[in-house]
């Protein structure tokens, strides 16, 4: 009988060498995390230099869901909870323990951003996210795919523990855990990029809620409050959002886009925007039909209207009386 292949051989010659690279990296203490949707990857062009890479990450923090990066900074607690590999005897003739099951890396992190943020973080439990880890020296650790692109580690679990009240001896705690899915991604296919402190300028998106303030003829007045702390965006971006292109108006019945003819920020008393909808389209609606109104995408708000870092949680329906 011939041996057709040798699955554990490693090739005709070995591939192991023990020379030490001139430039290598020693992992420092984790400082931040980049959670990302499963499809997010950074190719060689994205990693051309530090500025390009930081820009690529920033752009993806404003991208559509499914292609988005969610940065999380200022970790205040870190514990490596990676277990030892499971070892045991193979049979009753074994004289030593052999590795049976690989250890999978798991980490416990903590932030100190507050209850609202902690509640938001819980939503990540239900997403299929990947994770890159950034250390104090702004080195970004992820994994290398077969096509050479860099992406985050696949997660087996992302769980948010209950927050803990402060005690006379210690501050309040906001803990959460990650367990990676693959040792192969973490160890054999490890990838890193040495970035710099500009990375920490990248922020996540803040949710905002639209509400209809009133409706008079074809002019609807809309209020925008941040989710959770209810800050009025009018105080910050009254003029910037007084732009027809910053909003998206549609006919709910047909799905067709309807023209916004103007947006005014003149109502400073109520701190609402007055949006004038196309008069002809509004007149054509019958009583009980709807237009839908929403803010434009986070990417467009940031690039065109200089309202950076906000995303609407959903449209509002405007009913024709």
């Amino acid at each position, binding site marked *: 009988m011939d041996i057709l292949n040798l699955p554990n051989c490693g090739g005709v010659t070995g591939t192991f060498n023990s020379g030490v690279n001139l430039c290598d990296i020693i992992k420092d203490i984790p400082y931040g995390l980049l959670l990302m949707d499963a499809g997010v990857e950074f190719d060689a062009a994205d990693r051309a230099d530090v500025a390009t890479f930081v820009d690529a990450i920033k752009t993806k923090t404003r991208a559509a869901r499914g292609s988005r990066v969610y940065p999380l900074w200022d970790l205040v607690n870190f514990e490596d909870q990676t277990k030892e590999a499971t070892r045991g005897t193979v049979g009753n003739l074994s004289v030593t323990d052999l590795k049976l099951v690989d250890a999978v890396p798991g980490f416990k992190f903590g932030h100190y951003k507050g209850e609202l943020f902690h509640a938001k973080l819980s939503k990540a439990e239900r997403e299929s996210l990947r994770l890159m880890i950034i250390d104090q020296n702004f080195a970004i650790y992820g994994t290398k795919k077969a096509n050479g692109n860099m992406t985050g580690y696949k997660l087996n679990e992302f769980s948010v523990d209950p927050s803990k009240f402060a005690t006379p001896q210690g501050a309040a705690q906001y803990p959460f855990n990650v367990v990676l899915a693959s040792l192969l991604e973490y160890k054999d296919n490890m990838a890193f990029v040495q970035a710099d402190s500009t990375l920490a300028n990248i922020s996540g998106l803040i949710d905002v809620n639209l509400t209809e303030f009133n409706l008079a003829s074809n*002019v609807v007045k809309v209020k925008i409050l941040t989710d959770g702390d209810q800050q009025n965006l009018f105080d910050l971006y009254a003029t910037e959002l*007084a732009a*027809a292109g910053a909003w998206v108006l549609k006919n709910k019945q047909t799905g067709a886009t309807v*023209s916004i003819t103007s947006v005014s920020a*003149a109502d400073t008393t109520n701190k609402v925007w007055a949006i*004038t909808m196309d008069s002809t389209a509004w007149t054509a609606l019958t009583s009980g039909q709807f237009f839908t109104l929403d803010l434009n995408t986070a990417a467009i708000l940031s690039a065109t209207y200089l309202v950076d870092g906000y995303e609407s949680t959903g449209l509002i329906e405007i009913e024709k009386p």
Partner: protein
Amino acid sequence: MSKKLKDIRIDGTGFNVPYWAGKTLEEFKAEAMKPDAAMIPPDVPEKDREKWCATAHGLIVKANNGEGNPVVNTEELEAEAAAAEKTKKKPAPGN
């Protein structure tokens, strides 16, 4: 900046430039003069509202053609209107 091509801002109101550039001054006026419309800044006196509309519509058309600075305020509008008035009063060449 691309926003200057898309929107015109006159005293806190952003106009849909391509939309209004394609409509006549009369159509612009009809919409802007409606009691519920929030297009004309509230501090523009009643007697000046028509003049304001004419100047704003003129600026919108100019902005749509890529001319001028679309981010303006009432003083600039007044200056624009005064300049237009001056041009009108200029005697025709040869007269």
